[in-house]
């Protein structure tokens, strides 16, 4: 069971959240995006083995979305930061592949 700090409500168990997948995937301008670009946005994911920037939503609580940096190797949470904020630099944040 992962325990993740909701920026508002504090530490809550994984079961209270909805996992929202990779963070920082902006929706491209549809008019200026070709099919490959659209496929990229819809489906292609970095899926790194290492630090992953991802989104979570506190579904059972305050219902806020926020971002998390988490190691997909050992599930350690390295940072929690608001939607829209840039990905923080954390030590050991190198991902294998990606």
């Amino acid at each position, binding site marked *: *069971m992962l325990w993740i700090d909701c920026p*508002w*409500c*504090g530490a*809550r*168990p994984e*079961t*209270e959240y909805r996992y929202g997948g990779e963070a920082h995937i902006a929706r491209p301008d549809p008019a200026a995006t070709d099919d490959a670009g659209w496929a990229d946005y819809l489906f292609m994911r970095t899926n790194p083995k290492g630090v992953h920037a991802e989104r979570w939503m506190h579904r*059972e*609580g*305050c*219902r*806020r979305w926020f971002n998390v940096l988490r190691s997909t190797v050992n599930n350690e949470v390295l940072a929690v930061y608001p939607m829209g904020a840039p990905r923080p630099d954390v030590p050991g944040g190198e991902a294998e592949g990606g």
Partner: protein
Amino acid sequence: MAEAPATPRSPLAGLAGALAGAQAGGVTLTERPARARLNLRLDPEDEEALAAAAAVLGAALPLAPNTAASAGDRTVLWLGPDEWLVTGPAAEADMLTGALAGRHHAITDVSAMYATLALSGANAREVLMKGCRLDLHPRAFAAGTCVQTALARAQVILHRSGNGQTYEITVRNSFSVYLATWLLDAMAEYRPA
């Protein structure tokens, strides 16, 4: 032509008998009567809106997460950074709407959306621990704490109210029979044979 009934029908009406039998032993369970309720949304940075709301409610909106404020028979529960649940006298909606006119806000009447159960007694915390993953120890969950969380398989608002002897569990109507049944089941071991 049909008149409106004097009292609203509780979604737990069918469990009245079972609840009546849950008034003794290490833990008791009671349904709270329905009250008027509002879901209030406003921007927590909007000082004027906060002040206007506080003026109507007689209490400042709690800004600290997981807390509640009360004034008289009115309570305001923090639900999110821009969301509160106000329980109090009816007709408040109009006053609030008036006070907040011109400010970005939303007031939604949710008076009929929930049932509230009160769990008290020496073993109340233990009963909750069977279904709630949060730390309910008084050091972490002082009197006055109010959280939205999961209890068993229902989403609830859990408020350690008053002097801390009672946990008020507010649950959406459709889940209320399930949750009350679950609680009665979890309480069984503390009830007199």
